[in-house]
């Protein structure tokens, strides 16, 4: 039993997939930064940024509707920004009881929602178009400590193994969660009891993890591991990829500057 669906990577013969992972990583971060730096009222810039991300989605052949669907997962957090609809001073638009919806509040809320939505899409494209080992390479290029990269590599590798085990524990619990024939007054035990059962499952997972970590260490030591993290040197970035990076960064800088000049 495998949890394939946890891995968002989808291989496609697209231009985006073929980009150097370091370039993709840099451009994604730069894009998100550009979105964050764009002042709240600068709608034309948002439109252009959105069209950029939409174009990249199309280029990546991942399926625009799929990416859009996934990007809505972050929406519930928008509730946190909801109060600003009513608290920012501005032109009143609508009154609901004691609360007054203001135009400025609506604009700010819409701005934040737009930023969030656009940023999320670019992050989704990065994760879906780049195999995780390539992302690790990009992290190394960005000078993230080798130790941390090694830990992340192992974490990724065993994520699915552990998730399988967690699933099996939950299935076992499900299998034992029958309903009595005559409906009892209380089925399923108290919340506290259920939490403790779940806690037991968590403890179980922990135990298996310790034991597995020991075995993995034995396997690593058997192949000569000495505690130092070793890897091949990073491959060379071609001129083509460098120019794509430069172009992308240049375009984003222009957009951000434009945003500041006109709406700052």
């Amino acid at each position, binding site marked *: 039993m495998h949890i394939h669906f946890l891995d968002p990577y989808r*291989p496609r013969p697209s231009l985006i997939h073929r980009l150097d992972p370091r370039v993709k990583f840099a451009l994604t971060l730069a894009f998100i930064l550009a979105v964050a730096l764009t002042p709240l009222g600068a*709608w034309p810039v948002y439109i252009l940024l959105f069209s950029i991300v939409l174009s990249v989605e*199309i280029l990546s052949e991942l399926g625009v509707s799929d990416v859009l669907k996934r990007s809505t997962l972050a929406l519930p957090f928008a509730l946190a920004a909801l109060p600003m609809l009513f608290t920012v001073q501005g032109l009143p638009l609508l009154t609901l009881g004691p609360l007054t919806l203001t135009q400025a509040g609506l604009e700010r809320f819409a701005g934040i929602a737009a930023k969030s939505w656009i940023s999320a899409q670019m992050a989704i494209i990065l994760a879906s178009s780049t195999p995780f080992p390539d992302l690790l390479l990009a992290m190394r290029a960005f000078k993230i400590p080798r130790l941390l990269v090694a830990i992340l590599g192992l*974490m990724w590798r*065993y994520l699915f193994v552990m998730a399988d085990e*967690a699933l099996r524990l939950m299935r076992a619990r499900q299998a034992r969660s029958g309903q009595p024939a005559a409906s009892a007054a209380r089925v399923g035990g108290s919340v506290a009891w259920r939490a403790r059962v779940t806690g037991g499952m968590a403890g179980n997972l*922990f135990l298996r993890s310790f034991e597995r970590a020991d075995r993995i260490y034995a396997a690593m030591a058997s192949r000569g*591991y000495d505690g130092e993290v070793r890897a091949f040197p990073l491959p060379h970035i071609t001129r083509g990829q460098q120019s794509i990076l430069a172009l992308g960064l240049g375009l984003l800088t222009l957009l951000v500057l434009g945003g500041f000049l006109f709406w700052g």
Partner: protein
Amino acid sequence: MLASPVLVPPPAPPAMHIPDGFLSVAVSITFWVLSVIVVGYALKRVNQDLGERQVPMMGVLAACIFAGQMLNFSVTGGTSGHLLGAAIATILLGPWAAVLVLTCVVGVQALIFQDGGLLALGANIFNMGIVGVAVSYFVYRTIQKLAGGRSWSVLVGGFAAGWTSIFIAALACALQLALSGTSPANVAVPAMGGIHALIGIGEGLITVGALAFLYATRRDLFQARQARPVGGRAVWIAGLAIALALAVASPLASSHPDGLEWVAEQKGFLDVARKPLFEIIPDYVFPGVSNGTLATILAGILGALIVFGVAFAVAYTRRNRQPVPTDH
């Protein structure tokens, strides 16, 4: 293998992973810097403490916490409780290893599953991986000391550490939102604090359940880790300081609806210094259409052209291509 359409990777505890767009750039970068410093130090300490075993141990435990967050229990009807794991990780691994483990979990959640933003990642790591861990450590060790190391202190300490880690991390989150101007403190703090005071109960219970299980089955593992408290005074003090700071700052901030007033004032000064270009150019290029609207329309047209151009190009190249390979 049967496809499991029912199971979508569930997001971690609701409303703790801040997406991009909700924090100001200044706040994001500040917390990135803080997190980088603490995580960097954690790497050094874990290197000292675990040596060769650190990579497999941290990696697998990070995977375990991630998978553990998938474990849920139904609270009422549709809602369910989840585990964050900061308390459990801290109690079993010590604070520095816990920081690393949670950093990896939160990092991968953001990068791969978009559970939390990338620019906001620094703040998320800080809230869950650093505040959560420091506070857990402080609470747990304090209770242990007060109880003189008696066995019930493990369970009580575990519950308290679990609850407090969630609650205080939520306060940190709320204050970050307030500082960014996204959510006024007098709403964010009570809301986040209130919700997570409840969620924290679930965390506390699961933490206790896990500790009880391990205490019963592998007491040797337990005691080996309890005997040498890895972490020491610095972490304890940090935990106390953070908990106090957030507990005091939150009600203070709540009573100032505009967020922290001096921040607003600073902004006012800055605004005077920078005049948007619009004020230099006349308001209308075309009579009746403001420059702002014009720019928006033009941007819309330009954007649409770009998108259609790309779509067309892709469709064109696809026609001449071999059938696309199917997914794994």
